Structures are given as C-alpha cells and as structure tokens.
C-alpha cells in the first residue's frame, strides 16, 4: 500500500467518526511526506576535490573547479526544470552570517545569473569583482539523481588561511540530513581531518567518507584500507567510498560503462539514493505510520467499549465504570498540575539557567583570551585578522553551547515522554536547537577601531610642542647667564624634550589603541551575548511550548475518545434491537478497517529505518 493511500483511508475513517482533531493530525503527517527535501552537505578540507565531486555527481559544471583557488561560497544544487541559477546575497553588512543564515531562513535578496557563469562566483578568483556579498549560489537543474528531493551542497573547505569560510560550514551542519566527507587518495586521513569529522558527526550523524582522485593514485586501495582502519579506531564506522570524478566525466563523455564502474560513482549514487534519500524517506514514513497508529488507537479506544456494551447490555455498568476511570486519568493528564507538566516546567527552568551560565562562561573565556592577545601585540598590526579570529572563537564556543542545549533538551523530552504511552512519545516533533543558523544576524557589525595614526605633520607638531617648553625654559635660564634665548643649550634641551614628548605620545597612542580595542571586543562580545541569550531562550521556550502543545493535544485526544465512548455507551441502553444490530455491524466494520490500518502502520514501523 502506498503511503498516500494509507493516510487517505485513515483520514476517511477519522472523518466518519467526526474526529476533526485526528483528521488535522493526519493532514500534518501527509504534508510532511509530500515535502521530501533531503539536504546533503559535501564537506572536508580544501582542495580535496569536493566541487569536482558535485559536478561529476550531477554531470554539470555548476561548481568552481580550479588547480589553486579554493571554493569560497557554498553552492546548493537541486532539482529544477528548466535549469536556473541564482546568487543569494546578503542584505546586511558583512561579518555576521555565512552559509548558515542563508540556508535556514528565507533569504533576503537574490539575483538570477546565467547557469554557465555560476561557478565563476563561487571561488577565490571571483571575490575582487563581486562587490555584493554572496551568501550562497544556487543551481536548479533537471537531473534524475536530484529528482527525489535531494539537495547537494558544495561547501568551502576547512583549514584555509581565511578562517571565515570554515565557520560558515560548521554552523550549517545541523541543518543537513547527511554528510559526504571528502578526502583525496594522495594520503591517509590526517589528525585535523578526523577531528573535524568527529565534531561534524555530533551535529549530523548520517555520513559517508568519500575518497576522491583515485584515477591519479596507484595505491588508492591501500589508502582506503588505512582510512577504514583510522575511522574504525576512532569509533566512526562510516561507509568509505572511493571515487574518481575525472573517470566519471570521461565515462559519460565516451559512453563507457566499464570506465563508469571503475569511477566508483555507481556505488556513491546507490549510497545517496538508498542510504541517504531512502533512509530519510523511511524515517518520514515511520513518523507517518506512527501518526496513523496513534489515530487508530484513539478510534478503537472509542469503539471497542461501545461494541462490547452493545453485544452484552448486562456488562454496561462495568464498561461505563472502566471508561469513566480512563476518562478521569486522561483528564488528569490535561490538568496544569499534571506530573509531566511539572517535569517539563522545572526541567526547562533548570536548562535555561544552566545554559545562560554556560554561554556567559564560554564568552568570558573568549574575552579573556582576546584581551591577552591585545596586550601582547599592537592592535594596529593585527586588527585585520583579529575580527575574523574573534568571530571564529565565538562561533566555535557557541556551537558547543548550542549542541549541549540540544542534547539536554532531548534528554528532557525523554523524561517527559515517560509519562505517556510509547506511541505518543515517538510522534514528538523533533526540534532543531543546535542549528546556529542566523543567530548572529541581528548583532551589529563589529565597531571599527580608531588606529590613532598620525601624519608626519602631526608628529612634528607633537615634537615641536615638547621642544617649545624646553627651549623657553633653558633659554630663560641661560638668558640670566647672559646668553641669547636661542642658544646651543636651549636648543639641545628642546630637542631632548621634543623627542621625549614624541616617544611619550607614541606610547600613549599604543595604550589608547589597546584600551579602545579591548572596549570594542567587550562591546562585541556583549552584543553577541545579549543576542545569543535571547535566541537561545526563545528557542527553548519554543521547544517547551511545542512539547506542551503536543502532549496536551495527545491528552485531549485521549480524553475526547473516552468521552465519546461514554456518550455512545450510554446511548446503547436506549436503542432498539434492529438499530443495535445495525450499529454492531457498523462498528465491527470500522474496527476491522482500523485493525487493518494499524497492522499496516506497524509493518511500516517495523521496517529497519
């Protein structure tokens, strides 16, 4: 049975029972099934062949490939006919969001470009010409592989000298459904690569390791073996897929099936289709099946007592008593004083205060390090890199914080779910908290630092001002001894004092620069902290509300089912024999359908996800 049909039949059943609340729930599940976007991030160190891999996958030159220049702007490749391409631009001043803000929220501004020129905007070569800040490039092309809702994102590599790109990649990780981690066959995995992979997997556990450029390296099977060993020792049992983008291009150009097999792409495409898209579909199917199961459970809970009361009127009082007891329990779950409500409220309160402390603590360390760096060096010489460094440190500190928040929320959700039946807890909508997407969007850009640089004329003036006093002082003193105001002694004193004034002025300027720089840093961190705490609290509150609404809805549905049953069971007593038989047949039919649907749902659930 197809999922759509399956849901439709359940909707019909719930509609027959006049249960609009259950119908609404099923409609939500149907919408989730209809929107199949699966986002796959291609990540790894720079110059490992990520862009070439994406190009070879979609057999179109949509990403920039170059010997030396690395990718700087992410490119999103998705299905679309006719083919189109656009650049999504930042509306605000540079320095805040990267890929993150872009991929998450609805972008602010975009500009269509010819598809064949898209690659020109995405690499280091492009930057000087494009005045606007490109958040990401997007290509929509008609390719069978993208048909199932697959979106492939080529990201800028990590480990470059320009640290900004890497932060953008890290913050986009939680929004991804799967990762392709790319490393080339010229050498085994390195320690920094493995460290990056380990962190990335915390945000997105569905990943594969792709070994590229197998055409150029004789020993690639050894490298694949060694890499498998490294991954295994690190406790990351990812599939390792060796590929060659060049061979795939050649194979397609010459229509050579053997070469295509050698390129390793059939396995990669299979992985994408079955393990990633398929997995995502199975996961969605499971939640849909879960919704169906819970709906049929609710319906049966109403019908079953009525049926037994109809079949044997003498048992009616017993049935009614059980029903009323169940209703009272359901009612208790709805109360504000219900135990799960208290667990949720308290848990959230603790979480918010812990998190606030955590964020403050981390940012305080960043500030301390930044101040130490400023004290150790002259801000004038290092300021250009300093902003980037600071943002990177803040970013990584916050990512940790947000990840921790997500882990804690999951734990809390589990605690609350224990108060309910298993199926109700399973259907809990998953919240994405760790996504740092757009968190810093509203933080004002870092203030510029006044370098207190002075022109030569000003330097002279400072020196002159210092020397003026010296000349006058000593001139007057020596004048008493009968010399002219301007004499060698007074000039000498003037030069000395002038020099001293100049040196002091320079030291003052340095001290002022340092103080200013520290102020800028503190203000920046303060701004960020303010914004981040607000976002974090909003998100947690949203999670709390989602959870509360979800479980309240579950409790409502349960209570309504019980109430309906009581009403219909009471009605049984007044019914005539003919009516009763008809009702029995009707109920049996409905129950049989519900059973069938529930069985289908369980089958779907039972499939390995």
């Amino acid at each position, binding site marked *: 049975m197809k999922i759509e049909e399956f849901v439709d039949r359940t909707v019909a059943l719930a509609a027959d029972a006049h249960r609009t609340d259950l119908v609404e729930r099923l409609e939500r599940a149907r919408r989730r099934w209809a929107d199949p976007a699966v986002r796959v991030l291609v990540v790894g160190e720079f110059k490992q062949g990520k862009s070439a891999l994406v190009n070879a996958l979609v057999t179109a030159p949509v990403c920039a490939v170059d*010997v030396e220049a690395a990718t700087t702007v992410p490119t999103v490749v998705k299905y679309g006919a006719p083919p189109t391409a656009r650049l999504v631009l930042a509306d605000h001043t540079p320095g805040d969001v990267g890929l993150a803000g872009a991929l998450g929220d609805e972008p602010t501004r975009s500009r269509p470009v010819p598809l064949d020129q898209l690659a020109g905007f995405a690499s280091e070569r492009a930057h000087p010409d494009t005045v606007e800040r490109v958040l990401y490039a997007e290509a929509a092309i008609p390719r069978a592989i993208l048909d199932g809702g697959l979106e492939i994102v080529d990201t800028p590599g990590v480990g470059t000298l320009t640290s900004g790109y890497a932060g953008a990649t890290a913050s986009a990780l939680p929004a991804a459904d799967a990762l392709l981690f790319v490393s080339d066959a010229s050498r085994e995995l390195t*320690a920094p690569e493995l460290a990056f992979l380990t962190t990335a997997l915390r945000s997105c556990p569905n990943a594969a390791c792709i070994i590229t450029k*197998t055409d150029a390296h004789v020993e690639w099977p050894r490298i694949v073996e060694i890499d498998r060993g490294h991954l295994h020792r690190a406790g990351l049992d990812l599939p390792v897929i060796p590929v060659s983008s060049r061979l795939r291009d050649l194979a397609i150009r010459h229509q050579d099936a053997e070469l295509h097999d050698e390129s390793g792409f059939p396995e990669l495409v299979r992985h994408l289709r079955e393990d990633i898209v398929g997995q995502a579909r199975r996961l969605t199917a499971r939640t849909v099946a879960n919704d169906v199961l819970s709906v049929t459970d609710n319906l049966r809970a109403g019908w079953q007592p009525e049926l037994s009361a109809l079949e044997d009127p003498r048992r009616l009082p017993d049935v009614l008593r059980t029903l009323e007891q169940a209703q009272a329990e359901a009612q208790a779950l709805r109360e504000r004083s219900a135990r799960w409500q208290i667990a949720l409220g308290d848990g959230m309160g603790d979480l918010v205060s812990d998190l606030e402390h955590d964020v403050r603590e981390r940012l305080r360390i960043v500030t301390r390090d930044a101040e130490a760096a400023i004290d150790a060096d002259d801000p004038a010489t290092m300021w250009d890199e300093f902003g980037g460094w600071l943002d990177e440190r803040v970013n990584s500190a916050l990512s940790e914080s947000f990840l921790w928040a997500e882990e804690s929320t999951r734990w809390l959700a589990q605690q609350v779910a224990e108060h309910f039946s298993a199926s109700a807890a399973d259907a809990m909508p998953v919240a994405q908290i760790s996504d740092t997407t757009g968190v810093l969007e509203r933080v004002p850009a870092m203030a510029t630092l006044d370098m207190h640089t002075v022109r030569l004329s000003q330097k002279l003036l400072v020196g002159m001002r210092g020397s003026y006093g010296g000349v006058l002082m000593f001139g007057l003193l020596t004048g008493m001894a009968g010399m002219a105001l301007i004499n060698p002694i007074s000039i000498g004193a003037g030069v000395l004092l002038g020099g001293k004034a100049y040196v002091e002025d320079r030291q003052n300027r340095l001290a002022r620069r340092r103080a200013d720089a520290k102020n800028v840093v503190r203000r920046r961190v303060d701004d960020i902290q303010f914004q981040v705490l607000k976002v974090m609290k909003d998100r947690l509150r949203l999670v709390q509300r989602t959870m509360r609404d979800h479980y309240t809805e579950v409790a409502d549905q349960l209570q309504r089912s019980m109430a309906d049953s009581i009403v219909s069971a009471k009605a049984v007593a007044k019914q005539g024999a003919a009516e009763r038989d008809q009702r029995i047949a009707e109920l049996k039919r409905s129950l049989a359908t519900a059973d069938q649907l529930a069985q289908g749902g369980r089958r779907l659930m039972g499939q390995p996800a």
Partner: protein
Amino acid sequence: MTTPIPPSGPVTQTAPTRPVTQAPPTTQATLRISGTPEATRALLAAAARAYATDPAAAGTVHALQGRLDEPLRVAIAGRLKAGKSTLLNALLGEEVAATDAGECTLVSTWYVHGPTPSARLFLLDGGIQPLVLRRVEGRLSFDLAGHAPPEVARIEVTWPAPVLAQMTLIDTPGLGSLTTEASQRAQDLVAPAAGRVAPTAGPATPATGPGVDALIFLLRHRHAADLEVLEDFRRQSDPSTGAENQPTNVIGVLSRADEVGGGGLDALIKSQDMATAYARDPRVRPVCQRVLPLAGLVAQGAQTLRQTEFESLRRLAAMPRERRELLLVSARRFITAPDPDVAPEERRALADRLGLFGIRLAMVLLPYGHDEPMSLADELLRRSGLPALQQAVVDTYARAADLLKASTALAGLGRLLAAGPCPDPDLPRRFEATVLAAHDLRELRLVARLSAGGVPGLDPEEVAAARRLAGAYGTDPATRLGLTEDREDDPATRPGRAAPAAEEIRRAALEALAHWRRVAADPLAVRTLRECGETLTRTCEALLIGATVATGEDRPTATPTTVPPGDDAASAPSAGTS
C-alpha cells in the same frame, strides 16, 4: 627480499646520478664583514664562564656551543605524506629512505656524512645502540632492535652522500598525523612549544629552541596549520627581535607538483604559477620567502633510472597512441589492464618509480630527441624541479652554514638571557651588540629577500649585482665585486684566472659604493629598497677598508683578510655610517 648492504658507496646503477653542485670550500675566501660566527663563539665562551655555577643554564650553553661545531642541521618537514622521504632520497641521489603509500616515517632519521654506511639508534633514556643496516629492495629498513617508536629519540644514519658533507639532513615524521606522538616529535624538533623538552635534540632544554638550524618545508596547499609551524620556527630561530620578518632559514617546497590539477602534462607549469603565488601571498611571505615546485617522485626516479625501465618506457612510447591513452586513463587501469607489449608488472614498477605524470612526461620526451637513457633521465630531472631546489639549498644553506648556525645559537642565547637575570651583567650588553653588529646576518636576509624578488624598484641586472655584492656567490671581495667570474650564477665554473689586484678591487668597490649610496639616499625609494642600499653601502665600505689594508701591505686579496673575532671589532668597519 632482504640483502645485506654493500660495503661502501651507492648501489650500482645504469643511469648516472647527478652530483650535487659543490660549494666552493669555505676556507678559500673568507672576508667576514663582521664575523658573526666568531663573535658568537666568543660570546658563548663568555656565557659558559658566566653560568658556570648554574648547571641547567650551563648545559644549555654547552649544547649551543656543541651545535656550532657540528654540521648544519637541515630538517625536511611538512604535513603527513607531503613527500619528505622522497625528497630526501632525491637529495641524496639514491633510494635510501623508505617511502610508502601509508605513513611510514615514525621516527626522526638523521643522515650524517661518513665514509661507510652505518646506523645508530638513540634512545630517549640516553642509550645508544648500533643498528644493523638492511636494505629491502634498495631501501633501508630498521627493526629498532626491539624498541617501540615512542622510546626512540632518533636514528642516525651515516651515509657517504656528497650533500651530507655540507649539512646533516633530517627526515621527520609528518605533522598532523593520526600517530600523534610521531607528529609531536616532529613538532618538538622544529618548533618546541614553550616548556616542553625536545628529546630528539639530545640533551636539549626548551631554551635551546629548535633542534635544527634550517628547514626545507614541504607544502601542498596553503594550510593555516603549516603557517603556524613556520611562524613558531621563525620566532624561535631568529635572534633579532621581531621587526625583520625575513626568514633566511626556510625554503618552501611545493611538493607533489606532478599531481597538481590531476597530473596532466601542464601540471609543472601550473605548479610553478602556484609556487609563485604562494611566495607572493602576504600571509606566507613573512614565514617563508621562497617556494619552489618539486615533482619529487619524478626526480627520485630520474636520478636512478634503470636500463630495464628505460626499455619499458620506450616500448610504451612505441605503442599506438590510442592504446596507450587507454592504459593511461587511470592509475588502476595502467597497472592491471592486459597489454601484449608491456606486461602489467612492468607497468606497475614504472608507476611506482615515476608516477603517472612521470610516465606521461617521458612519453612526450621520448619522441623529441630524448631517446637515450642519459638524456631522458637528465631532462626528466631538469623538469622535476630538483636541480633548482638543490641550487637553492646550496646557495642558501651550504654557503651560509656557519652564519645560520650562529644565528640559531644567538637565538638560543637570547632566550636564555631573557629567561632570568644573568650572573654577568655585561653579557646582555655584549649579546645586544653582537646581534646589532651582525652585518653578515643582514646580508643573508638581503640575499634571501632579493632571491624571492622582494625588493621592488631594481632592474634584473641590479638585482644580480646586489646578490653578488651581498655574498650570495661567495664572500671574497673579488667575487662580491664580480671581478673573477665569467658566469655569475655558477661558481663551479669559475675560471682559474689570476686574482685581481687590490687596486682593481678598490676601484670597483668605490664604484659600487657610490651607486648604493645613491640608492640609500633616494628619498623617493620605498623602505625596503633604501634598506637594501644601506646594507650594501656598508658592505662596500668594509670591502674598501680591506682593499686599502691590502694595498698598504701589498698582499694579494685571495688571502683571507679576516677581521679579528669579538664584538668590538665586529662593529668597527661601519662606525661611520650607523
């Protein structure tokens, strides 16, 4: 297969190895403008006396002194699998160090010069054990005599290669490897973190700083982590504080140049462009002024090309083009696909020795006149970039070995003095004076900067003259002033002409002095150019003094005119200009 090592000399080869260009013997001409190596020795002797009561500091000083008498230590460093061992083999001219697709250098291996091959194992606990030298298919293989790599400080291999007579080459484990202790060991050797004892450098303390005097650093891309290591090395090995930013003891190598852009025929041209771009990068420049491309595998293979390999290559080249192209489509196909003319095993051997790029290159070279083993090997070698790198190593390191060692020792002494109050209050002052007076160090920096094209506003002829004058080709007055050489690039071809008369030197020095004074005084010139002018002005003045002395005593200038050691004498010649 394991074979015992032949008693002496490299293994027999069909193709000739190219000898490393020999630097002129250093004793021939040593007019030292300010004699920093001698001054450093004197300074260290004074330090040894001053710290006699402090055993830790005395140990450091003693270690620094010891380093001055050893050959220059040059480490070949870089990330994991950058091609360090391959480069080492190429520099030695034969396949000695083991190379492999996986990580295989786990212990620092020091190659020192000696008449017969032998090896010793230095343990962390101070023990020294002789090792049996075994060669598996030509490569050395060590069984560490039952010790695990973490217990071993280093392996020292004595080998009769010509290049080792000028410097000790050190093959290091890769940085950023998952075998963390091996990476840490390499890091300790190159740039020990503060407070860490670097066990590889023998009895070293953090104060002695890097265990090496110079680096050949292999880069594949501009990795942020690589630049950090280089920055640490620069900070720890440069005695002058801060501002100079012109490291003379790092040569960057863009390694595995044959793999650039997928190993197409234009790989070397592209890699040359990349190397130039790297060296121009304002983020790379402060830590590494020169970056040279190198196709290490091609270089190593070409140096030891065997007759059988040449035959295979010729048969491969004789194949119809279509069939050959099909074989060369991918590495796997090349070593497995059946073909009647060249057996897969033969092709596998070729691919291991030359790489796909080397084979493609040979296919192009063979039909165009390079159809003799010698000629093909020479052309492959020339294109691999190795001769240019060897030249740079000789120019920058071998010639300036004493200066580079003095520079490292001074940096170490500087750290010692900065660490705490010195028992001899006069020592810090003498240290400062020596560093400030180190005109030869300044010249060395100038040469490095000129070689890297870092002085704008000079035409090529002026650059050549400036390099020569600063002592890039030899430090005797006649060479500096260009009076002895027909070809200025190659000191090996220096004709045995009679040394020029002192009067001639005086005249040439005066001419050069006038020129560089004008440059130094040009108010419109950029700062680097003015500094270049100032440095060379001082050089000319020193030459003039030397020539005047020589004329006065009527002695030929080829005789060393050494300024006596000691810091006071060191700063004397330029007293008028500074």
